[in-house]
């Protein structure tokens, strides 16, 4: 009830509603642009562009004396583009690598911006300029006009990205190929940089110079965990960006007068952490489970293989644990495996008077050992004769697919016989082959 009341209060306040709408649109837009920047490996570029926007905003104010958001946008875009060109020139014509070029340009432009900012603040009408809000962002100070500009520009950016989706995909995946089939990739890259600058600049007022880059990259990095398709990644990133924007604004509005920009970034980071840990397939947890499963599978296969070859060699079908470990010392570390196999009904373990365990295979256990050894040996001969057999052995050898296709089985069996690798003991309940 309490939360509902706060929400009602929140939505009744028209100014709060405008701010919420603004930050949500902003998150949406930077989520879209950020996806491409992330895949183009331009993560840090957003940071440079944000810092380089500051001198542009100050210059715009100094030259015109007005606080029109459109003039700020133009000024920031110009210095942002100049900064990105500087980086391109430095990496192209000097021996300096890109990371160094990025940090040089970032600090020089930001330094210049701070100098201009202090100059403005010490001048006559500087105190009222309110330019310092661009440093850390102050979305609560946004008025309807700011939001209109922001909304229109953000929508335009998203529309351009949708129209040029195919070209941007080419830019992020394979520039040289794009060039070879006739797309002017240099121009597309510059245009993308321009879109990125604009996205950064409209976000400055809300998130600030220092935090804008996080808003651009974090939703994209989070989205990458959830999907293997670019179109879906862009949409997920946009949704996460919008949610972060909305959530950050909401938290800042209902409580404690906390600053909105940082809360937006913290929300985005929370989404990122959740994605990194819990996303299916790519998430850390899923990968850990997969790794444990594979490990268990490998150990189990090895155990059945060893048992089977031991029977082939000795003709025996039951052993004490001591005998087994004497033959295969590696098995002695896998005590958990044995109790699991007992539970699954593959083996029977009996404690004997002398304290040793008597181990024997059940029928299903024996047949499982037979299957395991047959599969392994079939793969062996397949790999030895890869060139004579159709089909791709790799996809079976790496354990992703344990079904050997029926059409190659007879071929593999005759090869097994040729190499004397056919299992010498039969499956239980079957004639000897």
């Amino acid at each position, binding site marked *: 009830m309490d939360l509902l009341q706060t929400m009602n209060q929140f939505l009744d306040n028209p100014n709060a509603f405008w701010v919420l709408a603004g930050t949500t649109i902003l998150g949406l837009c930077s989520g879209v642009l950020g996806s491409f920047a992330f*895949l183009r*490996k331009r993560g840090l570029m957003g940071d440079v562009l944000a810092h380089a926007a500051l001198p542009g905003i100050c210059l715009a104010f100094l030259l015109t004396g007005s606080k029109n958001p459109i003039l700020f946008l133009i000024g920031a875009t110009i210095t942002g583009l100049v900064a990105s060109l500087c980086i391109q020139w430095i990496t192209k014509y000097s021996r300096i690598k890109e990371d160094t070029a990025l940090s040089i340009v970032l600090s020089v432009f930001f330094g210049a911006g701070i100098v201009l900012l202090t100059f403005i603040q010490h001048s006559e009408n500087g105190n009222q300029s309110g330019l310092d809000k661009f440093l850390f962002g102050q979305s609560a100070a946004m008025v309807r006009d700011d939001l209109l500009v922001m909304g229109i520009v953000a929508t335009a950016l998203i529309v351009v990205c949708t*129209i*040029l*989706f*195919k*070209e941007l*995909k*080419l830019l*992020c*995946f*394979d520039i*040289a*190929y*794009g*060039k*070879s*089939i*006739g*797309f002017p990739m240099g121009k597309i890259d510059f245009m993308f940089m321009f879109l990125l600058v604009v996205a950064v600049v409209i976000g400055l007022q809300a998130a600030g110079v220092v935090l804008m880059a996080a808003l651009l990259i974090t939703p994209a990095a989070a989205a*990458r965990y959830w*999907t*293997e*398709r*670019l179109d*879906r*990644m862009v949409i997920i990133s946009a949704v996460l960006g919008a949610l972060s924007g909305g959530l950050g604004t909401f938290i800042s509005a209902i409580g404690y007068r906390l600053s909105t920009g940082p809360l937006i970034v913290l929300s985005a980071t929370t989404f990122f952490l959740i994605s990194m840990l819990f996303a299916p397939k790519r998430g850390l947890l899923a990968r850990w489970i997969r790794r444990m499963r594979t490990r268990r599978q490998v150990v189990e296969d090895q155990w059945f293989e060893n048992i089977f070859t031991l029977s082939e060699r000795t003709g025996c079908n039951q052993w004490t644990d001591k005998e087994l470990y004497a033959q295969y010392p590696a098995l002695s570390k896998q005590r958990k495996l044995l109790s699991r196999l007992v539970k699954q009904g593959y083996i029977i373990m009996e404690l004997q008077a002398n304290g040793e365990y008597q181990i024997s295979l059940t029928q299903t256990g024996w047949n499982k050992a037979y299957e395991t050894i047959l599969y392994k040996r079939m793969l062996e001969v397949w790999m030895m004769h*890869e*060139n004579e057999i159709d089909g*791709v*052995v*790799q*996809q079976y050898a790496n354990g992703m697919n344990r079904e050997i296709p029926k059409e190659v089985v007879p071929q593999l069996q005759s090869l097994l016989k040729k190499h004397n690798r056919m299992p010498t003991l039969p499956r239980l309940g079957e004639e000897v082959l």
Partner: protein
Amino acid sequence: MKNSESPVSIRNLSVAYHRKPVLREIDYDAPEGELIGIIGPNGAGKSTLIKAVLGLLPRASGDVYIYGKSYREQRHLVGYVPQRESVDWDFPTHALDVVLMGRYGKLGWFKRPGAKDREFAMSCLQKVGMEAFAMRQISQLSGGQQQRVFLARALAQDAHIYFMDEPFVGVDAATEKAIIQVLTELKDKGKTVLVVHHDLQTVQEYFDSVLLLNMRLIASGSTKEAFTTENLQKTYGGRLTILPDSQELLLTR
């Protein structure tokens, strides 16, 4: 000067990185409808030659003609298979989508690939034996499979001339077989294929003619005439040991 019959004619081509020339004054006319091997040691400028022809690198001097016209005009006739390592394979997309990129040149700006393009891309994947992997995320493919996806993408361009940059490097036997099969099919259709190639053992088996390169053009012509011990010695500058009595070639450092 220019030869309007030849699918690719290169005139006086030089390429320089910074101050150092990498390729000097290459003159070459590719014979039509043949598989052509571009052979030379590491750093000989084999990939550079291809990239300069395709306009991916600035040329210091020289001209390139595709069927007697500039590359710009004839771009639609040329297909390209870059080196596999040139891209990040952890890109969020599947094999079919990469092959569809081969259609982008014909689609032009803004237009998205349609059902017909998908069908065509599928048939290209089939030609390289990868139709079962169409929807597989590309990082989950083996190196050889990735190479075949790149080959299928070039096939999707439906070109007349193909440039391939080291397609046989680091691939499995199945991929090598698939690539050779595709190359033979292309040749049977009268298409011209230029392949940067490393493995001297297989040159005579795979290629109709060769272009021996080490910063300059050493020799070119049919494999029988140009791929000789003498020319190879010139190309590899004494780093090549040829065992007497056998056709085996050994590369020593």
